[in-house]
């Protein structure tokens, strides 16, 4: 499908434009630039959304009828879309140009990776029998919403760590609150994603947990964020230590999403994704 790829690539180019404006805002942060930054990101996200829906409709026209998140190309496109959406929601509370630049650059990079380098999977092929289930939509959407929330937490954390290096007396209460909210939402979504995946595996293969590498790394990511929440509540950890843990969790999440699939000795039931 050329139309969906063109729309997604156009969205990616607009994300780059939004990123450039965010960099500009770092030096001259005025209301005009902030507004246009959000508007341009919105335009990119709408193009991205249109590309996604064109592909979704194409799966119906071809008779395959599936939510297009069934291979690596489609997953990367959807992840980029979720990151952009996460920032559009988050910017209501955080208008920091540094975090905006990071999130927009990351959304553009993920989408560019899908559009430019991930050539395999661009054709719409029928799904293998195990993927022909309504659980696909619910499982993948909840997981990627979790990934987007963890990505936002990681960029907030990185920005805070950068600032605290320059100013050790920085007030951390706002960052702490933001990190907690992003991680809480991500943790709930990841739990929903893991449990819906288990329910699906039970329906497809009769086993709710199979120690597949992707499942195990999801569990590892879940444990890291569970540690984050427990350390905050029970041990009184605050922004600096939590920020480091949010970055570690993000790296584990990236490995769950991409590393497991790219390392051949870790391929398992999720090798198609």
């Amino acid at each position, binding site marked *: 499908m050329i139309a969906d790829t063109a729309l997604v690539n156009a969205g990616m180019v607009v994300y780059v434009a939004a990123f450039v404006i965010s960099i500009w805002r770092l030096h001259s942060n005025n209301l005009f630039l902030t507004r246009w930054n959000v508007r341009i990101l919105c335009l990119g996200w709408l193009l991205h959304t249109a590309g996604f829906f064109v592909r979704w409709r194409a799966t119906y026209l071809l008779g395959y009828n599936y939510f297009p998140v069934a291979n690596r190309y489609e997953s990367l496109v959807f992840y980029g879309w979720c990151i952009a959406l996460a920032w559009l929601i988050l910017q209501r509370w955080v208008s920091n140009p540094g975090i905006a630049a990071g999130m927009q650059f990351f959304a553009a990079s993920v989408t560019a990776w899908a559009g430019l380098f991930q050539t395999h999977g661009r054709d719409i092929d029928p799904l293998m029998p195990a993927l022909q289930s309504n659980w696909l939509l619910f499982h993948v959407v909840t997981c990627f919403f979790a990934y987007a929330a963890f990505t936002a937490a990681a960029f907030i954390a990185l920005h805070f760590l950068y600032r605290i290096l320059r100013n050790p007396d920085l007030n951390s209460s706002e960052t702490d609150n933001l990190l907690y909210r992003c991680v809480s939402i991500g943790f709930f979504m990841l*739990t929903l994603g893991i*449990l819906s995946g288990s329910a699906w595996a039970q329906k*497809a293969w009769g086993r709710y947990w199979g*120690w597949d590498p992707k499942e195990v790394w999801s*569990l590892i990511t879940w444990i890291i964020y569970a540690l984050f929440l427990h350390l905050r509540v029970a041990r009184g950890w605050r922004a600096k230590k939590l920020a480091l843990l949010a970055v570690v969790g993000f790296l584990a999440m990236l490995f769950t999403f991409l590393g497991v699939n790219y390392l051949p000795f870790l391929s398992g039931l999720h090798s198609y994704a």
Partner: protein
Amino acid sequence: MIEFLRSVKLTLGILTAIALMSVWGTLAPHRNIYHHPFYLGALCLLGLNVLLCLAPRLKILKGRFSLKKGGFLLSHSGILVILFGALISLVFSIRTLVWLGPGDTVDKIPTRGMTFEPLGFALTLQRFSMQIHPTGIPDHYVSHVLVHGPDTQERSVAIAVNHPFKKNSYRVFQSSYRLRSSQLVQFAYLSPNDEIQHIEVMVPGEPVTIETKECPLLMVKGLRYEPHFFMAGPNEIGSHSLQPHNPAVQVLLQCGEGEPETGWLFLSGRRFRDFDGGLERHLRIVMVDHTYETGLEFVQDPGVKWVLVGAFFLLTGLFLYLISGFCKGERNT
């Protein structure tokens, strides 16, 4: 001692240990870390830790209820119930793969103690059908079985992936399929209306010559046979997938003294893309006694309903806890 066993310090230690052992388990997949006594012990200790942590807090139910308290209790109870369900599954579940050809019947299955467990009903395979996409990916595969038995009303059911069949305490899953073992791969040259015009037995590495319309002297050499072909990427062709795919033979084709070409021929579906000379246009592989067996997995797992209840508790609890945190956050701001 009890204080230590219910401490958050221990919770953090166990979670870290489970995470590290899990990392090791994925990096050393040949070692079954997940069923090692250390791993199972850590999970049991986590269960004990959560139980002891919950017990004294149950009295707060008598006091004023809050979203945070309710969320805490429900989410941690959920983890406890999930761990209990997993333990039940580990100890009591039965899982057996049974291969059936057309007309074959199964009414008992082998269990862990090498004894046979009567199912209380019988399944007879009437027909196994599958449809394969030209890329080698199966579109669907379905076992049409007859359910019968002394106390069972006779009826036909279709078992497919994502559509298991439930009877008594068993669930039957469409797990796999395979070709009957005594089969012989042959190269066949077909007429435009798909009638076999020439057939040769394939011996790997041994060339055979076939006269075709496109080439009067076509040399065909079988290089590699994949009974369950799959393609996960441009260079990822093999047969290790849990999802069985289409049988295929990698062949070398050469017309007279022309350039040799390699590519894949399939039992089902069209030719693969990597040929470009058109020599393979009417060439196929065929098999003697082309019959499939279906792999049905019989599962009895009393732990599933516990895990389901635990999952519901965990999600509800997390949701309440999340809401309480956000309400508090709003008040603070």
